[in-house]
């Protein structure tokens, strides 16, 4: 074999290939097919084969001969597209081949350009302008060239162009739009992309685009409708396209092509919310389609339009519901079932009966092997639960979660938890049932929602007094079960259970059993933050049991047994590593020491009194005030004492620290967005800075805002204001009306502003993007007459600006307000004038149409 480059040695030894051109190499060249074959022959050595090919290509592409160059470019395009090799370095070669008179080579070059050129990858884009211009106008100049030639630059323009390029070539695009030819639909599709890249081309391209709507060629109409559909879709503003409504309506009533009809419906679904009278004109055609059309895609689109635009038009909605039923009942086609579920979701609350009647199918879809359908079914079920059927629904869902795989189980749990927890548990009537459901959810295998479950348990414990009994029962069960301790996701749940048992210990029946559970050896598997909670709970249980003993409610034996158990289990841990655990164990032993004389109780009067007093005091400390929910605005409600200045920016505190530090810089960045980066930085200068910070905090504690822990501790003292009574809402009347619920719904402590503020904080008003296009289009549509008005307005604005400059100078002398008022009123008048004039232009067109 003469040439070494044609064979593909399995060893891929690069030494065989030198960068110098051999005679053989210049005679032979691998074609694309050869390249593909070589890549396929040995998958293992693919990377080396590719790099060899690239080296080859680099050599070949520099050849002056266009054929060699083009084949090299072809190979490179293939590698770039399917093997993700960057080909930005070859842009110049691509440009060189663009003007080639040989159609085959030209096509290769354009393909390569469309796939790889973009303002972000190459700076050579402007160099293509001239060639693109020539090719776009080739139809008019040279009739011997292929009529499909200009389609090549059209493809290029639609993906790869930059705003500048678009601006330069728009004038060439315009004649293609207005001349009927097989190229027209492609020109239309390209034009809309050019418009969106570069809104300044609107004056040139928009009118021809609109004219295409009334073209004879159905393909052109289809492309034009598609273009307007894209232009009016979110996040763009659909308002400028309202004047086109009459045209589009004509198309709706006359066209036979389903494709076109679907697009018209989509456009209308965006225009109708802006102009409700439009709705009246299109309801009838839509109902007709719903009744007669055989095309499922059209029917689907009609259903969607009806449900989103005419939720109150009974007839249309009924038809739509019928069609949805049909879709849902197609057992053999999962696509139709999925689409049925999707459209069912669009039904508003007025038509929940429709969802009810299809409930069986929806429930069955929950167990469908298709993940997409399952997710949809879940969303649907969650959306339509109300207070009456919440119990069965959620029990069903949790049972389903226990049977499902990891991802879906967590999705189910997530949605159940969020729906039930919303609005302070608005959907939950029976808290006892809900708490046992929470317990079940904790037991679902693969569940990762431990944190949320724990949080909700504690939340309910704080807010709902009547539910505490049930909470204790469930918590006790969960704590006693040793199998749950090994599961890292359940640590939060166990922590919550332990806290609940400690806090509401008065509901417990058997202290010894609980203590045994809290002391079991498997507790050591839990993270230390959880163990800390456990030990704190043990302290509480112990104190309460002492107190109960003093009151005569339990026997001395149980108390002694508890003390014994604690000493045996926790004694060795007194030397453990973790400081938090250590501290609490010592506290616990301190309490035990205080009451060491308890076994001598009832023997000596004086000692009895002492012991009784101690037990009393201990109980008061821990159990006197129950914790309640704290409003988010509580901090704000504390009046700032006189003389205290609260600063937002704590950056100057850094000075305090650096003056005492040994040279390490700490960046106190008060902005919240940089918190994460800040944390990382702090981690890096960890030990030194944290100790300095602690030091500083001790000295200048007043400047620091209290953290969450401080708030809770402060609450236990008298300084913190108590929750006001007028904020608690009572929900009893509603529940007593229901015959099913045996007992009235317990009161849930709500703090009104909480929900409001949270909503404000989290809601983001979806603002329609005010882009340049809508402004430009508005001005084009308002016609020529307005141009003169605009010119007047512009000049008056200029005069106004001059006047403003004068008034600025005058302002320094005084009379500020008058000038501003005059300026504002002038601006307002100008704006009103322009709006009125443009609106008045549009209004007649639409008014005629709508009446």
């Amino acid at each position, binding site marked *: 074999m003469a040439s070494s480059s044609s064979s593909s040695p399995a060893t891929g030894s690069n030494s065989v290939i030198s960068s110098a051109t051999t005679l053989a190499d210049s005679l032979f060249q691998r074609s694309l097919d050869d390249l593909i074959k070589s890549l396929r022959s040995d998958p293992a050595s693919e990377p080396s084969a590719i790099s060899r090919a690239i080296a080859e290509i680099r050599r070949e592409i520099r050849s002056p001969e266009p054929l060699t160059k083009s084949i090299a470019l072809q190979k490179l395009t293939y590698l770039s597209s399917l093997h993700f090799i960057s080909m930005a370095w070859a842009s110049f070669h691509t440009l060189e081949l663009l003007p080639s008179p040989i159609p085959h080579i030209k096509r290769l070059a354009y393909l390569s350009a469309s796939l790889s050129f973009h303002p972000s990858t190459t700076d050579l884009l402007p160099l293509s302008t001239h060639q693109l211009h020539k090719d776009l106008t080739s139809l008019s100049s040279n009739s011997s060239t292929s009529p499909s030639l200009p389609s090549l630059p059209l493809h290029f323009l639609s993906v790869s162009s930059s705003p500048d390029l678009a601006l330069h070539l728009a004038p060439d695009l315009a004649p293609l739009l207005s001349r009927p030819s097989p190229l027209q639909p492609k020109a239309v599709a*390209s034009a809309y992309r050019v418009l969106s890249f570069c809104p300044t081309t609107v004056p040139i391209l928009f009118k021809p685009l609109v004219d295409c709507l009334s073209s004879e060629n159905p393909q052109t109409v289809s492309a034009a409708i598609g273009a307007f559909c894209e232009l009016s879709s979110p996040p763009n503003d659909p308002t400028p396209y309202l004047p086109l409504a009459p045209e589009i309506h004509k198309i709706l009533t006359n066209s036979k092509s389903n494709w076109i009809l679907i697009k018209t419906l989509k456009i209308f679904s965006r225009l109708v919310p802006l102009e409700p009278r439009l709705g009246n004109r299109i309801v009838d055609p839509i109902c007709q389609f719903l009744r007669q059309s055989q095309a499922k895609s059209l029917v689907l689109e009609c259903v969607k339009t009806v449900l989103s635009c005419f939720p109150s038009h009974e007839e249309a909605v009924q038809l739509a519901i019928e069609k949805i039923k049909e879709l849902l009942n197609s057992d053999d086609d999962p696509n139709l079932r*999925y689409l049925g579920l999707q459209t069912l979701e669009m039904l508003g609350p007025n038509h929940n009966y429709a969802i009810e009647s299809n409930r069986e199918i929806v429930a069955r879809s929950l167990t469908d092997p298709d993940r997409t*359908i399952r997710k949809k079914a879940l969303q649907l079920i969650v959306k339509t639960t109300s207070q009456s059927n919440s119990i069965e629904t959620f029990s069903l869902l949790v049972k389903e979660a226990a049977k499902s795989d990891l991802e879906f189980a967590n999705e189910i749990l997530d949605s159940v938890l969020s729906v039930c927890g919303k609005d302070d548990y608005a959907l939950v009537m029976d808290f006892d049932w809900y708490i046992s459901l929470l317990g079940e959810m904790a037991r679902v295998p693969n569940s990762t929602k431990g944190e949320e479950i724990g949080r909700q348990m504690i939340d309910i414990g704080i807010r709902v007094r009547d539910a505490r009994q049930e909470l204790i029962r469930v918590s006790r069960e969960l704590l006693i079960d040793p199998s749950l301790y090994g599961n890292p996701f359940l640590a939060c749940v166990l922590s919550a259970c332990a806290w609940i048992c400690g806090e509401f210990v008065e509901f417990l029946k058997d202290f010894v059993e609980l203590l045994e559970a809290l002391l079991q050896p498997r507790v050591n598997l839990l993270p230390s933050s959880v163990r800390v909670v456990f030990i704190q709970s043990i302290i509480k249980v112990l104190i309460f049991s002492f107190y109960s003993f003093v009151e005569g409610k339990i026997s001395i034996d149980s108390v002694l047994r508890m003390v014994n158990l604690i000493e045996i289990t926790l004694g060795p841990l007194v030397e453990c590593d973790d400081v938090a655990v250590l501290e609490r164990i010592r506290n616990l032993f301190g309490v035990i020491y205080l009451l060491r004389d308890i076994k001598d109780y009832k023997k000596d009067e004086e000692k009895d009194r002492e012991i009784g007093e101690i037990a009393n005091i201990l109980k008061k400390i821990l159990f006197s005030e129950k914790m309640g929910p704290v409003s988010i605005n509580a901090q704000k409600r504390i009046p700032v004492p006189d003389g205290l200045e609260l600063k937002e920016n704590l950056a100057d505190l850094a000075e305090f620290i650096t003056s005492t530090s040994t040279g390490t810089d700490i960046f106190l960045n008060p902005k919240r967005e940089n918190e994460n980066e800040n944390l990382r930085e702090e981690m890096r200068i960890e030990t030194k800075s944290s100790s300095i910070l602690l030091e500083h905090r001790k000295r200048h504690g007043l400047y620091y805002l209290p953290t969450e822990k401080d708030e809770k501790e402060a609450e236990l003292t008298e300084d913190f204001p108590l929750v006001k009574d007028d904020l608690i809402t009572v929900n009893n009347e509603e529940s007593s009306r229901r015959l099913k619920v045996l007992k009235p719904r317990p009161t849930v402590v709500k703090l009104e502003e909480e929900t409001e503020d949270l909503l404000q904080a989290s809601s983001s008003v979806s603002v329609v993007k005010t882009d340049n296009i809508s402004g430009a289009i508005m001005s084009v549509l308002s016609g020529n007459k307005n141009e003169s008005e605009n010119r007047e307005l512009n000049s008056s604005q200029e005069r106004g600006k001059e006047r403003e400059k004068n008034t600025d100078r005058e302002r320094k002398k005084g009379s500020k307000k008058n000038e501003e008022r005059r300026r504002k009123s002038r601006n307002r008048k100008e704006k009103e004038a322009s709006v009125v004039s443009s609106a008045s232009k549009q209004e007649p067109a639409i008014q005629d149409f709508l009446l």
Partner: protein
Amino acid sequence: MIKAVMIISTQGQARLLKFYEFQPPEKQQEIVRNVYGALSGRPENVSSFVDAESIFGQGTRLVYKQMATLYFVFAFDNSENELAMLDLIQVFVETLDKCFKNVCELDVIFNFNKLHTILDEMILGGQVIDTNSEQIIQQVDEITRIEKSSSTTSLVPKSISARFGR
């Protein structure tokens, strides 16, 4: 609009990629991997729609059809009708069938340029131009004819395989 047209083999290799919103090569690779991941786990007889929000952005979906060893995937957003897209895949595959006479994966592998030509007659800039497979074939044939007739390829082909008639 149609965001992308992809043909991916059941082994995860890309056979045809066309993105109607420019993506740099690394991003393209990531997209192909994600799409393949989403599709490979799906059993038989399930719906052809997959949510693609994490791959292409908000509101986008994939519709796919598995034919033998290839996945034909179209990614689209809310401006397209789902069932219409399903039809479009059908049209595309039929067109390929007519063009290559019982198309198989090898045809797709070795006809990179022709595939792009066919796709370009169907979709431009994310908008559908033509849904009639006959017409598309006609156009493609016309193009091929013109290119063959005015081609100045030398009588002796340059590539080894063509020269030695392998």
